[in-house]
């Protein structure tokens, strides 16, 4: 009987272990951990699409003048490594931190990746980057906004996206420019997860600095069957501004519930996430005309720099939809990582790390509406910033900073249900 058990165990292990392990020769491999299944699967797959496009731009020649100034986007592979091609190896995190940990280990030990990226959800990023830190492998995070990720004193962790502190400060700066309605009383409605709690903490910090007060602190459990209690609590607090930190499902439910309860906060300002999801815009767009959101990307900023237009057109040609704030950042992350590996001129992790530290891209060398990419002592990109958009028509339009705004009539306030 013991033999049976042993045989069974070995058979299962054999199956698990007979997974391909390549030798990395003309191919430079980086690992990407994303939620390809689970509740964030739709976002995970969008991120994968953008990353696939980035890899394509790096490896395969194409004639696009718009991308001329962007490092690594000329389709020549990694020139300093003999034109080696970049390959991204994906692992599904299922949205769970311990799975992310396993993925990171596997990618490092078996797939022999030279760097890691991912993982969208802050909890998964934490465990995956912890492994990278322990093993001395560079980790580039492009989408997670939780400030504490760069407060751990890690030496191998780099983040291109601005974090929630920058974003919430952007919100306050935007609110300062709003004169048509009062903006002093703020209510925060957020899901009781890392993302939501960090949003709230950041609002707490910057509300004080910008002379605003929080009149309601409404935390809710994600994916609840009903949010009527939350909406009732919100409406009775009578805020000037309602800031939301929700993912797609709850965003949809909140919109529906508020609409049915005939309650509209004068300024409905979302912290990205669900409100910028393609599906949300598609399904709920007509109902939430006038909703504001923080984002890092909007289709109308493509007019500001030729690179932005070029990259959006390419994405649209390949997938039939526009880039959004989530996957545009993933795309940029791959380009930054590839650039660093190229400048390192080797696959040695220390060299790549030094190259990352030395990253200094200016506004014309990034495909984001940022001032550039430069990492501070904590590994946080200090040149990034957010945008404030408003839903007008079929999609979002930029409202702030005014330098990116194309429609001077915006923002249209106060917010009301159509």
């Amino acid at each position, binding site marked *: 009987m013991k033999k049976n058990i042993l045989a069974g165990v070995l058979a299962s*292990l054999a199956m698990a272990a007979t997974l391909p392990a390549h030798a990395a020769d003309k191919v430079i491999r980086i690992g990407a951990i994303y939620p390809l299944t689970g509740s964030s699967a739709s976002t995970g797959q969008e991120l*994968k699409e953008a990353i696939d496009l980035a890899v394509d731009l790096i490896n395969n020649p194409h004639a696009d003048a718009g991308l001329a100034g962007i490092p690594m986007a000329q389709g020549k592979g990694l020139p300093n490594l003999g034109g080696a091609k970049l390959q991204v190896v994906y692992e599904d995190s299922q949205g769970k931190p311990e799975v992310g940990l396993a993925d990171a280990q596997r990618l490092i030990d078996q797939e022999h990746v030279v760097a890691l990226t991912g993982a969208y959800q802050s909890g998964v990023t934490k465990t995956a980057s912890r492994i990278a830190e322990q093993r001395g492998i560079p980790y580039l995070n492009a989408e997670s906004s939780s400030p504490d990720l760069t407060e751990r004193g890690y030496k191998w962790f780099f983040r291109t996206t601005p974090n929630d502190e920058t974003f919430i400060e952007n919100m306050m700066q935007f609110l300062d420019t709003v004169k048509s309605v009062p903006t002093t009383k703020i209510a925060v409605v957020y899901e009781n997860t890392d993302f939501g709690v960090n949003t709230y903490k950041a609002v707490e910090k910057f509300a004080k600095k910008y002379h605003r007060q929080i009149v309601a602190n409404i935390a809710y*459990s994600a994916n609840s069957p009903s949010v009527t209690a939350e909406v009732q609590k919100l409406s009775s607090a009578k805020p000037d501004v309602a800031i939301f930190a929700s993912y797609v499902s709850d965003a949809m439910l909140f919109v529906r519930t508020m609409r049915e309860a005939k309650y509209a906060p004068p300024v409905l300002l979302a912290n990205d996430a669900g409100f910028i999801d393609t599906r949300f815009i598609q399904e709920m767009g007509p109902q939430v005309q006038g909703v504001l959101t923080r984002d890092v990307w909007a289709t109308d900023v493509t007019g500001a720099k030729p690179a932005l237009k070029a990259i959006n057109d390419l994405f649209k040609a390949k997938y039939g939809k526009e880039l959004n704030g989530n996957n545009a950042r993933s795309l940029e992350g791959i380009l930054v990582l590839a650039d660093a590996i190229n400048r390192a001129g080797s696959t040695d992790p220390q060299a790549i790390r030094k190259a990352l530290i030395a990253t200094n891209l200016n506004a014309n060398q990034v495909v984001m509406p940022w001032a550039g990419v430069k990492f501070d002592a904590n590994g946080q990109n200090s040149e990034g910033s957010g945008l404030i958009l408003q839903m007008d028509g079929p999609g979002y339009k930029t409202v702030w900073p005014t330098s990116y705004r194309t429609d001077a009539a915006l923002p249209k306030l106060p917010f009301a249900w159509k």
Partner: protein
Amino acid sequence: MTTQTSVSRKTRHLPVLWAAVIAVLLGLLPFVVKDSFTLQVLLLAIMFGALGASWNLVGGFLGRVSFGHGVFIGSGAYTTLLLLHYANVSPLIGIPLGGLISALLAWVVGGPTLRLSGHYFAMATIALLQIGLLLFTNWDWAGGATGLEAPIRDASWMLLFRTKVPYYRIAVLLAFLTFCATYFLVHSRVGFYWRAVNGDEAAARSLGVPADRYKMLAFVISAGLTGMWGGFFAMYVGFIDPDSLFNLTTSVQIVLVAILGGVGTLIGPWLGAAVLLPLSEGLRVMMGSSGAGMDLLVFGLAILLVTLFLPGGLITLRRRRRGTSGR
């Protein structure tokens, strides 16, 4: 569930001997197998086997199915990491303390819940799990929704290692201890009383079995063991948050492992874990990265097939091979 009556004294504790041999072999494995994925899978299999075996004390031998055992994993894990974080207490003390706190928790909630019958008890454990989840999510001092992270250091007495191999060895040791605990408990008078209560509680009571005390004992011991594993898990992953610990899916997986292997048997949960974990991890890695979700589909189908064709669990394979002997 065999009682060794007519076996000679020398081979009376044969299973424990076998367990020791397997433990030693597993402990030596990292010298041969360097692949971290395999080690991770083995570690998870060992951990779930132990969790299943601990659960089995209540669910199998006593006969009370608990779907909320994750609450003890959570209490153990948080105790360990909180002690480390705020008081710099080594997990060598923290993990047993985590077990103790979990046992205490079980003692507190056991009173009202253990007098509930089957289905009600199962649901009550789920309720406890959810309460634990929501309490810790809203408790900022314990990290709240953001969770707690263990520092990265090279400190063996703090159980902070840079590679996962030491954790693997600790897991093997803990598993062996868990197995011994379950073995000696089940083969003692305690185990005998448990089986009596499981069979027919009213009859057992009428024969003088102090049912309440022994029910509580099973619950408390099971919780304590589970809590220790929770503490271990916290150190292994290095990061905990309420969602990943007070997780209904994990609790159900523990039950799964025990039922799949053969509930109410000593070896069942280990067997179930040895098959289930490599299967689910292997599938995830093989098919999961495409995002098509095929791996979970195959997993679900596998569970369905096993239940349809091996209703007693994998352990019945042995009985079938032997023919008509044994129950």
